[in-house]
């Protein structure tokens, strides 16, 4: 595997819109708000940007074909080198990775990376667009719904490790409560484990409060090469490791209890960053949490806990905050995650990258973790239980 990188790359600005079930703004307008905020906080204008990387999930959500090109001028791509990347839900972390390639290669000095999703255009619910991910011959005729594979995966995780719903529900409690301090949050709330267990059963064992909602929103970061980053800010946040890995679409031929593809992506990123003992060397992490059990699943893939042990010492609410709360042993999803802030597919992963950026700069306000974080990890996941994307950031 490669180990020599041409140039160091830093994140120097970040921007984000509100995440809501339904926003008036078009996808382009949402992208503009996030991109402009990222440029403003980096202290630069669009003229300084050399290239733009766009991350956005299927055209079917916004309902516009060639969606990257459609969003282009709202993302500042007017007459610039512009490329759209997409790996399902992994996109939000893959977008800064692709932007990293642009800068680390020596090809560009300043790159704007914008992720956007407007799922409300798909009416009345984006579920119909989601189901086209399934094989038209093998799976759709059975009446498949996307929540099915999460339920089958959650069931497998619980079965192999003997983890109980009560333990998993504490993650939903933690993240929704953390989100109360996120200004963009869609579903922040003070709920209890009992609320989760009493909520409507969707696809057993998945219940309503185990899931994050579809959302509209956008988020963006500005990446700069070392010599430029040092000029722009006293506080660059270095991207020290990137990793990505995909598994096959034959998801019924794999054991779903453990996301190997997340582990391989994490190994790639950790090797680059020189991380040998993840739980000790990582101060704060934002694993992808579209469902509560996913935080555990992915944290184990990120090797922050051994397989099946993420919730080993967690029996109730107080345990989860003690282990993984903002004041806890290892803060996980201090932003409130997808469960609390919202899930506009591509923008959600980018939200996590923005969060690590703010956490490492001590700019996260009420969400700030107290352990003086120097190294943070953001991770996203996507498609048919296939994609792992990981970014390690350090100050």
């Amino acid at each position, binding site marked *: 595997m490669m180990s020599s990188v041409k140039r160091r790359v830093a994140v120097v600005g970040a921007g984000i819109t509100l995440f809501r*079930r*339904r*926003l*008036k703004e078009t996808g382009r307008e949402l992208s503009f708000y996030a991109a402009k905020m990222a440029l403003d906080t980096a202290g630069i204008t669009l003229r300084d940007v050399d290239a733009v990387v766009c991350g956005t999930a299927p055209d079917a959500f916004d*309902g516009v074909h060639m969606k990257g090109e459609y969003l282009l001028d709202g993302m500042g791509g007017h007459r610039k080198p512009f490329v759209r990347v997409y790996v399902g839900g992994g996109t939000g972390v893959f977008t800064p990775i692709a932007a990293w390639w642009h800068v680390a290669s020596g090809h560009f000095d300043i790159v704007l990376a914008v992720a956007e999703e407007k799922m409300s255009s798909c*009416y*009345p*619910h984006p*579920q*119909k667009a989601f*189901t086209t991910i399934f094989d*038209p*011959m*093998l*799976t*759709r*005729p*059975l*009446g*498949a*719904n996307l*929540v*099915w594979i999460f*339920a*089958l*995966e959650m*069931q*497998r995780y619980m*079965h192999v490790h003997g983890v109980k719903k009560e333990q998993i529900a504490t993650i939903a409690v933690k993240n929704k409560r953390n989100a109360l301090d996120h200004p963009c949050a869609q579903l922040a709330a003070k709920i209890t484990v009992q609320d989760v267990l009493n909520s*409507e*059963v*969707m*696809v*057993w*064992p*998945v219940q309503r409060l185990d899931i994050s909602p579809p959302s509209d929103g956008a988020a963006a970061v500005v990446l700069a090469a070392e010599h430029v980053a040092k000029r722009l800010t006293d506080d660059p946040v270095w991207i020290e490791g990137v990793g990505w890995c995909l598994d*096959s679409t*034959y998801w*019924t*031929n*794999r*054991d*779903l209890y453990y996301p190997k593809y997340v582990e391989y992506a994490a190994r790639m990123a950790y090797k680059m960053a020189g991380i040998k003992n993840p739980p000790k060397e990582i101060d704060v992490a934002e694993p992808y949490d579209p469902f509560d059990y996913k935080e555990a699943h992915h944290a184990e893939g990120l090797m922050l806990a051994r397989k099946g042990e993420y919730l080993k010492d967690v029996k109730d609410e107080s345990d989860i905050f003690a282990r993984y709360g903002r004041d806890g042993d290892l803060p996980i999803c201090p932003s409130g995650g997808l469960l609390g802030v919202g899930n506009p597919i591509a923008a959600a992963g980018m939200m996590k990258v923005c969060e690590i950026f703010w956490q490492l700069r001590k700019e996260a306000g009420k969400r700030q973790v107290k352990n003086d974080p120097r190294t943070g990890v953001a991770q996203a996941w996507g498609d048919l239980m296939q994609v792992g994307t990981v970014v390690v950031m350090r100050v």
Partner: protein
Amino acid sequence: MSRKDIEEGRVPTFKDKPEARYAWAAGVAMGRFLAELKEGRIIGRRCRACGRVLVPPRMFCEWCFRPTDEWVYVRDTGTVLTYSISYLGPAAERLKEPVIIAVIELDGASPGIGILHKLGEVKPEAVHVGMRVKAVWKPPEEREGAITDILYFKPLEGGGGGE
């Protein structure tokens, strides 16, 4: 803004329903798989390099990245690897009667090689990982060459029928 804002016209919107019709080519492997389902059989492909028998069959092995070597019939019995009880339909609509779905490792296919299907003639509470099941087929004259030629899998009495 809320869904009511749209439905009650408080926010101006534009509605559209693009028409997208497809005739997906089944491909060589799936073409045979569907044809065999019509005959009441489940067929897989073997890769001699890794030794796996793959269902659904494919003409290439994604692990070894080489063409697969031969057709292999597998049994229509198997073991539940994971399962779920769905109250949601494909458009996220609420179902009155839940659907029980499972990933079933088929006898004759390699370990861990499963297919997705429904379970029937069983109460949700009775389903468990490791349960032995058998396919219930549509009568021959009703089969079309589709995954739905199998109606569902039902529990095997006494756990028999395996290798």
